[in-house]
């Protein structure tokens, strides 16, 4: 297979918030940068983020301190977030958010003209002692949309070269495992091209589509994770999947935590505000994992609402029409469309729904992808040429549970950090890995395999089966025996997906081929998730097991590392050494 | 962002404004003439000729004929650039459009001059 090669200093794969923040940084410094995105950039999933971007800019509270934000984030992560990374994110955050405002992001405003901040779950003042904080900077309930469009606009201004509707299919590595670029397909023509670059930045987002019920866009198929695993790059804490408390029942569409931040609360079928029982202090604004579990307990205990008792209600009508229409206009629209309920008059039926992948490609704060040198307990070493930012990366700032509003901050802080680092590295001279023909063959094997398929099961049916398997065995609550069964089912699916059939082999805008390639990635993510979830024998953050109901700091106060070559789970130390503040020591986590 | 030498004012705002102002002139003119006709009941040639021959109406008619000319030119020019384009009728469009615009421009000029002769020719 001979393919055309195009050469850049750096390529970014993914046009969401992290990718576009990274490409912006590099475009501003004049390096030849390409951004490859399988959808037009403003169609990326960042656009769906609603509530806001959490950051101690001291608008709502002039005394706010990034260290308090750091404390909340460490606690929210159930203590397996890396404290050096969290320190970096929380301290650099304000500058990053101000930059976004200077770029034109239309934040909502306070009477003083400053950025409006609303309360979100897990936020506190004075290291948990000062009560609820309001730290999430918002543009109504369309913050992700506003942020993504602003970043796209700035990239236009600065001349980033976009390859929109190009699908990155495989990471190309040389014999040493150094990244040399990616093979990407022009969706419109079907042509496969080798994008060769000194730096390859994965910003491919999450993979919520491994579950059948998810708030994630249809495009969130874990392409970066799939490419990384196939290239032998490990993933970290991949068992940690956040279930957002408030997805609209049935539809799965997200209802922002900002609703509860603005004063909304959850009720069961008796009309009881049940979160008062589970989290007496923070109530509805406890960590997402806590709220999601509480909701599931209500439903499992028979206090769910609706004819089947399989959801609870989010009550907002008491906030009044004006607040709802100015602060939560998008939610009013979504609720009317997908739940047939006008929040001004009636509550919204909600249920915990897969939302965010805390795990991902392990990286340092510069976005450099890491692998463990010398086995599972080995020292982390960066992989030359490969970077990861945003949801696909595990820096790790979210640990076992991400706080609401920290995702957008993660995107822009680490997108920017990777951009800054690569800019400097390119200036000093980066090596270009040179793949040989075997390397290229390996990278294009999967394209050939689908094109050569003559018969087999359909992509749609296998995808459905995979999603159902993951939903049943690796949901909010997990059980050892069900997970062992799930791991087996996923292994079986691997065999069947390897034999599956692509019916349409045409070239022009063949989305069937893209969906087939995506299915391979879903499988990779699902397998890693299944093995890691089964392997972590404790309950921590979003990972909650019936058979191991307690947190086990003795054995599991660490990252899990899934090695794709051996399919074994290893461990990696959590960083407890922030540079400018004292370590936040693990405590019992209550809200 | 788009330059166009064949437009009247070579500028979108002036065209737009001329179109509106000429429309107002024509509307007022129509009201005056129709009002006069209604007030007359039965109209004789002498009455009509006298009415049109007075200085006020000569001025009004001048405004009217210029407004018709400007309004027609801008409107028809717009029509040619909407429909007589390569996108609509193929490669020959530019020649056809130019020809159509020339014919429209000439006709407009002829009517304008002829109208002025009629209005002021009797003096």
């Amino acid at each position: 297979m001979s393919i055309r090669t195009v050469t850049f200093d750096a390529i970014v794969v993914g046009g969401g918030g992290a990718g576009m923040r990274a490409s912006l940084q590099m475009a501003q410094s004049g390096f030849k940068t390409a951004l490859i995105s399988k959808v037009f950039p403003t169609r990326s999933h960042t656009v769906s983020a609603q509530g806001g971007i959490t950051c101690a800019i001291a608008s709502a509270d002039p005394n706010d301190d990034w260290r308090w934000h750091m404390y909340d984030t460490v606690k929210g992560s159930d203590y397996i977030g890396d404290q050096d990374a969290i320190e970096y994110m929380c301290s650099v955050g304000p500058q990053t958010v101000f930059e976004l405002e200077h770029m034109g992001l239309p934040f909502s405003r306070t009477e003083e003209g400053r950025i409006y901040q609303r309360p979100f779950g897990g936020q506190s003042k004075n290291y948990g002692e000062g009560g609820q904080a309001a730290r999430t900077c918002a543009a109504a309930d369309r913050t992700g949309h506003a942020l993504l469009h602003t970043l796209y606009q700035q990239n236009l201004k600065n001349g980033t070269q976009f390859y929109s509707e190009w699908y990155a299919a495989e990471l190309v590595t040389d014999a040493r495992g150094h990244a040399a670029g990616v093979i990407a397909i022009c969706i419109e023509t079907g042509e496969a091209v080798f994008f060769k670059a000194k730096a390859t930045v994965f910003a491919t987002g999450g993979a919520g589509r491994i579950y059948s019920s998810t708030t994630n866009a249809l495009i969130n198929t874990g392409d970066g994770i799939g490419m990384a695993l196939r290239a032998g790059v490990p993933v970290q804490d991949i068992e940690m999947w956040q279930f957002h408390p408030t997805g609209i029942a049935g539809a799965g569409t997200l209802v922002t935590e900002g609703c509860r931040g603005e004063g909304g609360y959850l009720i069961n079928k008796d009309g009881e505000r049940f979160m008062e029982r589970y989290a007496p202090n923070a109530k509805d604004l406890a960590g997402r994992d806590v709220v999601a579990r509480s909701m599931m307990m209500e439903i499992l205990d028979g206090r769910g609402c609706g004819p089947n008792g399989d959801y609870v209600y989010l009550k907002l009508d008491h906030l009044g029409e004006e607040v709802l229409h100015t602060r939560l206009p998008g939610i009013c629209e979504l609720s009317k469309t997908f739940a047939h309920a006008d929040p001004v008059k009636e509550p919204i039926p909600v249920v915990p729904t897969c939302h965010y992948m805390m795990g991902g490609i392990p990286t340092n704060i510069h976005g450099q992808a890491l692998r463990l040198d010398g086995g599972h307990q080995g020292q982390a070493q960066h992989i030359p040429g490969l970077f990861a930012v945003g949801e696909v990366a595990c820096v790790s700032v979210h640990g076992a549970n991400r706080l609401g509003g920290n995702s957008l901050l993660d995107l822009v802080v680490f997108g920017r950090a990777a951009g800054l680092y690569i800019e400097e590295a390119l200036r000093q001279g980066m090596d270009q890995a040179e793949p040989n023909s075997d390397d290229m063959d390996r990278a294009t094997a999967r394209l050939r395999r689908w094109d050569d398929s003559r018969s087999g099961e359909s992509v749609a049916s296998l995808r459905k089966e995979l999603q159902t398997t993951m939903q049943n065995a690796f949901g909010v609550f997990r059980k050892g025996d069900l997970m062992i069964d799930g791991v087996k089912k996923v292994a079986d699916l691997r065999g069947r997906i390897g034999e599956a059939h692509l019916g349409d082999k045409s070239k022009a805008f063949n989305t069937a081929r893209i969906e087939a390639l995506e299915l391979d990635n879903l499988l990779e993510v699902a397998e890693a998730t299944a093995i890691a979830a089964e392997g972590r024998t404790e309950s921590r953050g979003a990972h909650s097991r019936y058979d191991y109901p307690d947190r086990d700091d003795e054995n599991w106060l660490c990252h899990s590392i899934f090695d794709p070559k051996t399919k074994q789970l290893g461990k990696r130390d959590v960083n407890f050494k922030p540079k400018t503040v004292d370590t936040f020591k693990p405590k019992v986590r209550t809200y | 962002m788009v330059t166009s030498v064949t437009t009247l004012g070579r500028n979108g705002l002036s065209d737009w404004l001329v179109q509106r102002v000429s429309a107002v002139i024509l509307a007022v003119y129509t009201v005056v003439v129709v009002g006069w006709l209604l007030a007359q009941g039965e109209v004789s040639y002498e009455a009509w000729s006298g009415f049109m021959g007075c200085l006020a109406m000569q001025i009004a008619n001048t405004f009217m004929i210029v407004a018709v000319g400007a309004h027609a030119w801008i409107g028809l020019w717009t029509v040619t650039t909407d429909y007589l384009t390569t996108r609509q009728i193929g490669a020959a469009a530019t020649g056809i459009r130019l020809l159509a615009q020339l014919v429209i421009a000439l006709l407009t000029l002829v009517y304008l001059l002829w109208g002025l002769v009629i209005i002021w020719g009797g003096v």
Partner: protein
Amino acid sequence: MKVSIYRYNPETDREPYMKEYEVDTGGKDLMVLDVLNLVKEQDDSLVYRRSCREGVCGSDGMNINGKNGLACITPLSLAAPGVLDGRKALILRPLPGLPVVRDLVVDMTMFYNQYEKVQPYLQNNTPAPAIERLQSPADREKIDGLYECILCACCSTSCPSFWWNPDKFLGPAALLQSYRFLADSRDQATDERLARMDDPFSLFRCRGIMNCVSVCPKGLNPTRAIGHIREMLLERAV
């Protein structure tokens, strides 16, 4: 229920045609996108764009029984009377006025070009403060109804003026964006922005037909924004 879909594959078809499908929706008031997904399970050669499936990414703009809209937030009951109960077929065509790439996918280059022409980014040359630039809630309110645009192209591709001159007339979407920056108290390029639109095509081809307003899935009003720009041009000129 019956679904009739515009099909065209440049590799195999000399010209486009409508293809009929029979889909079992179980009588549910599904979204049009759900129906498309069911059709794709039958026939994986059917091509359409989709991403967020909740009406915020703007991928799946298409012509649904004669009216442009987003497939993911248009329920069958609102697609056209009679579609939900099967009396009438659901008819899906690509957005009109743009070249068709394949099936329901159109080439949006011209649409994006017009967007880029309005310099859709904040321009402010004063040194940025250490914190954010201040903006009063009243000033911020002026860009409500403008910044929410999702670039789905439903408006521009329903506009006859855009059909006739998609290379010269900016179209409702780009003009809405232009006004989003003109109305932003933080933007300083007002004069330059206005000067760039003061020709007979860019803005003035708007005839006030208001198709854009009637189809906008986000309920925005480009015609009003265009009117505001015209007022600003007038104010600047007289």
